[in-house]
């Protein structure tokens, strides 16, 4: 499409079963009751001038530009704050209105710079448009009176400037921060003529304030007051393409606003059903990595990881790689080869990688980064409900009465969903937080959790069993739901188990450290507070009992009847943009796409017939088992697409040893990541801006990713690289575009049967299953019964982790993420986001810090049974005594040097959240850090391609 601003109806959409008909400028229009006159006028093609109104925030009625005349009504009411009424007759264009509007506009312009031609918002400015619309030709008051034209620009935010000289004090930014983002970082300071937008307290600027740089204020600003630096530098975009963000599992859709092949800005798409026009600092602004100088754009090979890289042509790289893979297969057998698909890549790309491994390599040794995040979700929800996915869409939270957040930190990890959640909480829904840390949701402006159960890390199952004990023993279960929808015998077994006195909150308090009375109150609230919705994250899954915890959550939802309708459900907050999709696409070693076990003959034959090749009927290796087998000598080659296992997987020493033991490691990525230090082949990847395909977000929503620029690696999208590698191995693939791959996915995967790129282009998005039974997709799952038939209660008992604290390692380390950085930081560390988080920090309670003589900012040595690293400490009571916390965004720290190989019993998802550690003062980097830095520098040497 060309460049057109997004339609703005002035005030938010109102949903009502009651329709109201009125007449506007002689045209009859029918709209839902409660709609504003302004929106009604917009819906029938009319247009009202306005400055303070925008449809992302509630009407304010301050600018006086949208005045109308209503027959029978006195005065000139503001159309934005006036609701429609049956039979109302409205006039939007009269001589009287024109006179008033022009007079108001004169006042605005009398205190506004007249620099339109050189202004960054020229031709994209609502003030300019409105001045033209009212026909303003001069300002009778002159420009010499008191004004704000000399106000200083605040350039502290790395992505946008605040120029108060251009501010018209419409409060749209303040209201966007309040209502859309929910941070309340902005305010109007002063009164009357002295009114001005202020970020934070006196003396603050945007960077030092509580602003989270989501961009909602910038999007809402009608002038150039809040303007992207990129627009100021590059000018107004000339075209826009709708695409999907490549950061977290929320799956925000954006308009990539372009100037030729140059991305100018990413603006949240108002019609996006996942984000509803909102964004976070990563998706909105942190896309600079796409053209970062660190990107590797030429294929590279080397015979030994001791050698420098050698830049080569694509042909040479692919021939070299295929030769190595074929030779290893011939010598050691197909099961010596495997690969890792990427949850950052598209469904189509994941599909091809798993197909290459199964049909080309000849093994089922395919795994994905979901192994280290949400594999327990797949296991737990498939066992209990019959499908490996969350049950709701994001909109569902607006119907929740009680929200239970366990092991998730949505304001950092899933910020756009968190804004929606906070909006619901401000409306009055109750909140229960189960987390060892006092995450921001526990207490933030206008939000306070009813209960924060600050449990001891590793005791999720004990806490959930205690909650179940209260629900069952106090008669709070929804037995009618259970009798109708679940296996009653299994429920009774479970109810008997949890009712045992040893599972009471009082009995478990010594284990969980959660006060029994608090836990009982939380359980009662969840069971009796109306629609109860559970949202969870990696604080649930990344434990030795991750799968048990997911099952325990599903048990609670079934026992209370909180499943199968809006406002309730079990909602895993997925980590990466396409982690749901990568799992759907058959990335696990035991199952084919659509979660069908590899041993199922009928399913296997379906694929064998379509692909024309026999498939191994035995499950393959998971990532940690691949590394074990590599050290053992039976696993020799690995193709890794878009994943950095050296930095992200636990026990870095073990990962390094496994990679080092392999004969051929192929890294297909944007950057020379840490894993590439042990690789023999580097295949340059393409960014989400350079490819076409689909991502599937945490609500099972399949959305298009659209290419807005040519791949910088010589023109190959990632699926084309995989196809080229397959063909170099002799497979003869002939996909001409990503849409053809989706057609194959739909042909072979029942839950995707009705999906095609053409349909996604037409409808925007679809939520699987999309098939004959659900032709329009499935926003809510299990509405008429569970996918597996009867809901299955499974008894879960608390089994303590083998990772124990003791005299040498007295503290428990838990790890997590922060808003401005993403996963291993490969993308965000290469953006200005580093201004908020330049290094990993270790959070420690003041008591523990004092016992060790540590002050805020001191260097400390963090040691576990597997390794040690150093980083700075930050002293805070956000963590409980005995618990420390850090992130793993920076390779210089590599927190995973410290984490262990203990993992979930069912899925081997690593136990990142529980590591016994000691923390002591330090005066420099650890020996490992120095050794690794030296190795990393050596490994990254590149010999340029020789001139001919």
């Amino acid at each position, binding site marked *: 499409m060309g460049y057109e601003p997004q339609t703005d109806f002035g005030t938010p959409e109102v949903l009502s079963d009651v329709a109201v008909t009125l007449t506007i400028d002689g045209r009859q229009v029918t709209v839902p009751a409660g709609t504003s006159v302004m929106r009604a006028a917009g819906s029938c093609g009319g247009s009202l001038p306005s400055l303070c109104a925008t449809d992302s925030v509630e009407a304010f009625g301050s600018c006086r530009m949208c005045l109308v005349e209503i027959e029978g009504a006195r005065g000139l009411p503001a159309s934005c704050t006036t609701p429609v009424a049956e039979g109302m007759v409205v006039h939007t264009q009269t001589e009287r209105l024109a006179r008033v509007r022009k007079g108001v506009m004169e006042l605005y312009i009398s205190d506004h710079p007249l620099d339109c031609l050189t202004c960054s918002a020229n031709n994209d400015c609502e003030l300019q448009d409105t001045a033209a619309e009212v026909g303003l030709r001069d300002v009778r008051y002159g420009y010499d009176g008191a004004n704000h034209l000399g106000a200083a620009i605040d350039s502290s935010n790395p992505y946008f400037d605040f120029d108060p000289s251009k501010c018209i004090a419409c409060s749209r930014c303040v209201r966007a921060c309040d209502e859309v983002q929910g941070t309340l970082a902005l305010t109007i300071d002063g009164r009357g003529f002295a009114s001005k937008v202020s970020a934070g307290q006196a003396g603050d600027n945007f960077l030092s304030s509580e602003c989270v740089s989501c961009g909602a204020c910038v999007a809402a600003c009608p002038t150039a007051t809040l303007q992207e630096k990129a627009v100021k530098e590059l000018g107004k975009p000339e075209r826009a393409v709708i695409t999907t963000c490549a950061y977290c599992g929320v799956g925000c859709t954006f308009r990539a606003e372009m100037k030729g092949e140059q991305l100018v800005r990413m603006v949240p798409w108002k019609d996006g059903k996942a984000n509803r026009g909102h964004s976070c600092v990563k998706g909105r602004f942190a896309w600079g990595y796409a053209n970062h100088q660190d990107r590797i754009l030429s294929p590279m090979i080397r015979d030994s990881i001791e050698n420098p890289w050698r830049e080569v042509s694509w042909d040479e790289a692919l021939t070299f790689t295929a030769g190595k893979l074929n030779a290893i297969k011939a010598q050691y057998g197909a099961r010596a080869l495997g690969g890792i698909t990427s949850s950052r890549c598209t469904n189509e790309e994941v599909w091809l990688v798993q197909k290459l491994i199964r049909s080309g390599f000849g093994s089922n040794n395919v795994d994905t980064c979901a192994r280290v995040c949400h594999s327990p979700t797949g296991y737990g929800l498939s066992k209990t409900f019959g499908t490996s996915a969350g049950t709701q869409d994001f909109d569902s939270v607006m119907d929740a009465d009680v929200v239970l957040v366990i092991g998730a930190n949505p304001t950092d990890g899933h910020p756009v969903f968190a804004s929606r959640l906070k909006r619901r909480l401000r409306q009055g829904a109750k909140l229960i937080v189960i987390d060892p840390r006092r995450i921001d949701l526990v207490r933030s402006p206008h939000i306070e959790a009813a209960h924060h159960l600050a449990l001891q890390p590793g005791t999720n199952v004990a806490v959930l069993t205690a909650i179940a004990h209260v629900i069952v023993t106090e008669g709070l279960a929804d037995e009618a739901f259970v009798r109708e929808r679940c296996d009653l015998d299994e429920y009774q077994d479970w109810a008997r188990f949890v009712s045992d006195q040893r599972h009471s909150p009082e009995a478990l308090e010594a284990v969980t450290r959660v006060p029994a009375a608090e836990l009982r109150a939380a359980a009662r609230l969840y069971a009796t507070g109306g629609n109860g919705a559970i949202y969870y994250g990696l604080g649930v899954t990344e434990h030795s*009992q991750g799968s048990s915890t997911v099952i325990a959550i599903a048990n609670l939802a079934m026992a209370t009847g909180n499943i199968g309708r809006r406002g309730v459900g079990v909602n895993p907050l997925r980590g990466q943009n396409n982690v749901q999709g990568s799992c759907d696409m058959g990335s696990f070693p035991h199952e084919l796409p659509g979660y069908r076990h590899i041993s199922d003959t009928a399913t296997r034959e379906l694929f064998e017939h379509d692909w024309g090749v026999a498939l191994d009927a035995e499950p393959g290796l998971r990532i940690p088992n691949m590394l074990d*087998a590599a050290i053992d000598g039976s696993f020799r080659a690995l193709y890794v697409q878009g994943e950095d296992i050296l930095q992200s997987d636990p026990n870095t020493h073990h990962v390094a040893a496994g990679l080092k033991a392999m004969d051929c490691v192929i890294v297909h990525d944007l950057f020379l990541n840490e894993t590439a230090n042990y690789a023999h082949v580097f295949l340059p990847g393409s960014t989400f801006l350079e490819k076409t395909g689909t991502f599937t977000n945490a609500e099972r929503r399949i959305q298009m990713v659209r290419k807005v620029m040519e791949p910088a690696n010589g023109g190959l999208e990632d699926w084309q690289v995989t196809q080229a590698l397959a063909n170099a191995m002799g497979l003869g693939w002939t996909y001409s575009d990503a849409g053809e791959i989706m057609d194959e996915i739909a042909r072979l995967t029942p839950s995707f049967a009705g999906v095609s790129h053409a349909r996604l282009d037409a409808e925007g998005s679809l939520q699987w299953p999309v098939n004959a039974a659900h032709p329009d997709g499935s926003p809510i799952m299990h509405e008429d019964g569970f996918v597996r038939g009867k809901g299955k209660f499974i008894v879960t008992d608390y089994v303590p982790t083998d990772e124990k604290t003791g005299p040498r390692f007295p503290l428990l380390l838990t790890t997590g993420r922060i808003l401005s950085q993403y996963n291993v930081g490969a993308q965000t560390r290469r953006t200005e986001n580093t201004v908020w988080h330049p290094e990993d920090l270790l959070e420690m309670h003041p008591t523990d810090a004092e016992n060790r003589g540590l002050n805020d900012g001191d260097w400390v040595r963090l040691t576990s049974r597997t390794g040690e690293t150093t980083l700075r400490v930050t002293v805070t009571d956000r963590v409980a005594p005995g618990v420390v916390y850090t992130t793993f965004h920076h390779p210089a720290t590599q927190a995973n040097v410290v984490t262990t190989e203990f993992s979930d019993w069912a899925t081997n998802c690593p136990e990142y959240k529980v590591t016994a550690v000691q923390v002591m003062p330090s005066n420099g980097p650890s020996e490992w850090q120095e050794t690794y830095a030296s190795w990393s520098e050596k490994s990254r040497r590149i010999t340029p391609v020789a001139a001919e």
Partner: protein
Amino acid sequence: MMLDRLNQMANQIARNLAMQGEAKAVDATYQHLKDFWDPRMKAAILASDRAGLDPIARAAVDRLAA
């Protein structure tokens, strides 16, 4: 494959299924190993003396051998 690691994995699976009662736990542990373990992992634990296995895990591995 590293036997200690396989034993630890098998024992952990068995411990998490033990509350179902011994017979069901053995069934479930056996099924889990069958469904999720790669052939070389199964072969390695089958070739071991199983001395490092807890009773439920050992019974499950015995069944895998049958």
